[in-house]
């Protein structure tokens, strides 16, 4: 009896997760969380997944608000479309109507496809980036990035329901060193290390011994 209960419970849990993983449209951020120094700019992708993938349902319009902590982040800009796949609400080149409205602590992204139902249903993939948001980091702390759906429509004009996965950005007080600075630091460290080894070698081993060591190494 106990075993049956455990099995049924396990199945229920598994089915719940399967449904969440396979059947639902999910709005999320990419990356979900990241860390940056004060004074830098951070890019976050707004992604949708769980669509039909070249079959219905396809996305026809979206209106999403991203809320953040205005004392830590400042919204800089928003670019619609997937960086690799292109704008998936403008597949056949008919265009789309889009707008970005930002207020203190929130930014609203709206895009409406002018593509036909058939074009969206047959050409749109299941997962793609809706827009990329750029924030400037203004002070240290952790800001959530909370998504709220004002409206989500499929190609036909039926409301789509979706789950949201919120994210966040951590901002550190000390700015992270830039790449050229990191390379320079590494090169200088290598140079110092090499000099240190050479001086140890010269002082530690007399000339005859050094030759013997080298001969042994060659063998």
């Amino acid at each position: 009896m106990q075993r049956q209960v455990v099995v049924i419970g396990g199945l229920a849990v598994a089915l719940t997760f399967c449904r969440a993983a396979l059947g639902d449209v999910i709005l999320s951020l990419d990356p979900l969380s990241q860390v940056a120094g004060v004074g830098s700019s951070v890019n976050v992708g707004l992604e949708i997944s769980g669509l039909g993938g070249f079959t219905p349902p396809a996305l026809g319009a979206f209106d999403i608000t991203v809320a953040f902590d205005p004392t830590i982040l400042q919204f800089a800009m928003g670019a619609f479309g997937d960086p690799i796949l292109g704008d998936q609400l403008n597949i056949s080149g008919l265009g789309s109507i889009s707008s970005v409205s930002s207020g203190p602590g929130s930014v609203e992204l709206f895009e409406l496809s002018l593509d036909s139902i058939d074009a969206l249903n047959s050409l749109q993939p299941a997962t793609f980036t809706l827009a990329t948001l750029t924030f400037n980091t203004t002070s240290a702390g952790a800001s959530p990035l909370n998504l709220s759906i004002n409206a989500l429509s499929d190609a036909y004009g039926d409301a789509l329901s979706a789950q949201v996965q919120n994210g966040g950005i951590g901002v550190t007080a000390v700015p992270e060193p830039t790449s050229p600075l990191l390379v320079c630091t590494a090169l200088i460290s290598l140079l110092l290390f090499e000099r240190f080894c050479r001086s140890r070698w010269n002082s530690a081993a007399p000339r005859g011994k050094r030759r013997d060591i080298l001969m042994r190494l060659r063998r």
Partner: protein
Amino acid sequence: MNLLASAIITVMHHRLWVIAIITASLSVVAGFLANKLEAQPGPIFTVVTPQQGTVFHPGDSVTVAVSPSVGITLAVVNVTSPIGSATEEPAVPVQLTIPETLVGFIKIHIVCATQAGAGSDAYVTIDSEPATPAQNILVSPQSLSLAVQGTSTVFSNLTVGRLSVIAQYPGESDLDLSRSSLTTYMSSNPRVATVDFYGHVTAVAPGVATITVSNEGITNTATVQVNVFELRGDLNGDGDVDQDDLNILLKALNTSATGPGDPRDLNSDGKIDAVDARILTNLCSRPRCATK
């Protein structure tokens, strides 16, 4: 056996008594607690100034004073602009200044509170009207085109427009009198279009109506043309669905529908949003919702 039965009955009787005593005690305690927890009544006060319906002029100073003032604090909140407050005891009169451009009724929310924190409030409505009559009034727009949806026999009034009334004064800046209590609106044909106290015009049926606007003896008119549309998504009633209709819908994005028959609420869910916009794009007469 009889003895046993009588013993059980006696115990049961005792139990009932015990239950009755406990219930009575609990209700007494509950009543006491309820009395203790009940909110303290707020102070009883009367508004000395301003009196209800007093007419002021834009730019005037309004003194908000209450009686009695000792033992309470006074705050004036939720007034059109600006908000004043005084938290000293006794409650000092609060001075408000009516903005130079504000004409019409102003509702003032007055809140008084005791030291213990209990509060009560009152509302006073005053009127702000220009000190001198206008030389001329302009009605904008002069021509308003609205649309109704329906058949030739049954129409539902769907679109609403707003008239604004601008008063001109010699040597002074213009003033918006749209919400002035002295401005009146009248429709020549309420079966075509009706107009309310604030100049909102509602289309009723196809036809033409003239709206006459008056303020202190000066009149001007605006013409309202009401068209009929029977095409779903044709929000401007021009016989096709295109970008112009989409723009009308997008202007109202994320707002509530005006009612069950709002033509912008294409899925009839009570709100105008991106889903309605997508439905409208599918109804467009030409690709890309292009205009003619």
